[in-house]
């Protein structure tokens, strides 16, 4: 059986590998090259050196977007993970209907970002118009809106990962702690959470990088209004690319910088949470 699988390995590897090359590696290398070029379409690039990067760093809105994005990422990371963990804890207790709740909480995750953005825009607009306000008038309203939207969307997903993690904790460890006289809080912080570190690593990684790269929700909910102030990095790159004639390369340069930031943050986070994982 194993031999047969080995013999056929190209059939299993090649499609995915080809897709990876075509869909990721090739565009990535091309993108890297284009960030040093001036171009209208990707096939007529003209090398211009690092001037794109100079323009990218000189753009005050890019720096603003970086701060705004970082802030958003931190806030949503904390909110999403704390609530998801709490719900996961609640739904692994012996309660009636936990499966229904799990399904319900997971469902928002099945809706695409653009659709979610527009749905929430309608909801927020309806509420805010009562107070004669609108999302597009204040970037912090947009910020709050984005956090609510993302929390609503991602809590269910993270919850499922946490539930899986919680169910994998051996009961005897918890029982032992109970017999030793640990109360509920002590059991949670000294037994459950350390045992949950692998799940926490995954969830923080997913929400950290995911929210840093958030695009559709931002585009659909606020479109960067007012005056680019609620623009996150990905949307800023998009606007740079299409907003001005001849600035495609600058957008590309920003995208490369963005990539480097995301990789750095991701690696740093993995390192920190990994070091806290314990052997079961």
């Amino acid at each position, binding site marked *: 059986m194993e031999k047969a699988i080995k013999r056929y390995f190209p059939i299993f590897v090649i499609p995915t590998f080809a897709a990876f090359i075509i869909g990721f590696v090739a565009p990535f290398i091309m993108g890297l090259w284009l960030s040093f070029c001036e171009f209208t379409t990707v096939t007529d690039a003209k090398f211009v050196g690092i001037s794109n990067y100079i323009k990218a760093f000189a753009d005050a809105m890019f720096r603003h977007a970086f701060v705004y994005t970082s802030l958003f990422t931190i806030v949503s990371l904390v909110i999403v993970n704390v609530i998801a963990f709490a719900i996961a804890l609640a739904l692994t207790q012996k309660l009636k209907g936990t499966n229904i709740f799990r399904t319900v909480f997971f469902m928002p995750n099945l809706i695409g970002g653009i659709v979610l953005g527009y749905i929430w825009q309608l909801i927020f607009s309806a509420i805010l118009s009562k107070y004669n306000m609108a999302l597009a*008038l204040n970037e912090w309203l947009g910020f709050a809106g984005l956090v609510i939207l993302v929390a609503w969307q991602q809590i269910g997903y993270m919850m499922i990962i946490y539930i899986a993690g919680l169910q994998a904790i051996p009961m005897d460890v918890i029982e032992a702690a109970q017999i030793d006289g640990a109360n509920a809080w002590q059991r949670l912080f000294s037994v459950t959470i350390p045992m949950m570190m692998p799940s926490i690593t995954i969830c923080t990684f997913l929400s950290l990088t995911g929210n840093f790269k958030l695009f559709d929700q931002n*585009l659909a909910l606020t479109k960067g209004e007012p*005056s680019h102030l609620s623009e996150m990095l990905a949307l800023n790159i998009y606007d740079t690319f299409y907003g*001005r*004639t001849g600035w495609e390369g600058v957008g590309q340069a920003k995208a490369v910088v963005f990539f480097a930031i995301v990789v750095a943050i991701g690696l740093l986070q993995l390192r920190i949470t990994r070091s806290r994982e314990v052997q079961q």
Partner: protein
Amino acid sequence: MKKCFLMCTAAFLAATTLLAGCTGGSGSGGSGGSSQAGGSETGNKAAAGGGSVYYLNFKPEADEQWQELAALYTKETGVPVKVITAASGQYEPTLKSEIAKTDAPTLFQVNGPVRLAVWKDYCYDLAGSDILKELTNEDFLLKDGEKVMAVPYVVETYGIIYNKELLKKAGYSQEDIKGFNDFKKVVEDITKRKNELKFSAFTSAGMDKSSDWRFKTHLANLPIYYEYKKDNIDNTKAIKGTYLDNYRQIWDLYINNSTVSPAVISTKTADDATAEFVTGQAVFYQNGTWAYNDITDIGDDNLGMLPIYIGVDGEDKQGLCTGTENYWCVNKNSKPEDIQATLDFMNWCVTSETGVKALCGAENSLPSGASGMGFVIPFKKNLESSNPLVNIANEYVEKGYVPVSWTFSTMPSENWKNGVGSALTAYAADQSDSKWEDVVKAFVEGWKTEAEASKTE
């Protein structure tokens, strides 16, 4: 085991074909959900000359007609014509990705000199081609030196469309409105009696992306037009903003006399405004001839159009805003036989009976019974329009009113328009002088920054 293997391969094959099908069908736009592009290929057999046409259409509202016209042309001549329509607001991203492909569009469009600067390296010199001989006004051409880069195929007009019946109900007629002050009086009187009349003066000035171009681009045309006229120029790297106070006047009028509170206009869409107009909730609605199909419900005789007065001296002779932002360009990098096929197709569209009828006609203009596109085309074979808004526009010209030309194609970039749009939205919510200063800043300083930053040479 063997069976399993076979099934796996079959599944892979199915998956890859599906994938191929996806990439072939839709032009890849920018962002996930909003980039649907409808398209169909007509006629796969190669024509006698071997050339084929691929038209990347800008107007989603005319997609159906173009598809049918393409099929008709193929049937008549055997030349395959493919028409792909970019989703609304996604033309540039779609064009960018499509033109980089091997099977690139042979016919595409730019919307004025600013966009032409981007695409001129792709434009075939149209000088001497048959279609130019059909043109009624050479001034409309976009040129690069002696080279003819782009030819307009539709002329459009916009102004303030109004509901005659409602205006009469309010006790006024078009005769009462001869300038900005008259207009202001009428509008403010309607607002004062809003509860009694049960309608507002203006439809919502929506600043949602589907509608904000009516104000950040089309309305902004007027102060730019008058400034150009005063300084006797047709383009500039640094706008002065001479008529921005007038811009403020008219914008104030729009937002403070509409169906909604000025603070919430950022959430209002083009559909909202259209619906308000059609259902008689408001008298005035700024839009153009292209909107006719959306507002037919209120009746042809009931439609009127007013010039957009902004309170400039001598505006009693001002007409509607007429111009074009739809120019055809032929892709220079296409195969010579494809270029020839494309030139023939363009010429056929504006000279053959079928083509002209499809472009200019109203209901039942196509063999399938579909409506024509209702365009006014700047070519000799142009037909009398059945679009009442077009006829109103013609009347203005006949009566000697001077049409306002479309200067907004000289706006330096998308960024500039968005900047002005955001500032207008913010000002609407808080109508203070300092907020208006932001609009002025976005308008004047933004113009300078954007003109310098953009590649326009």
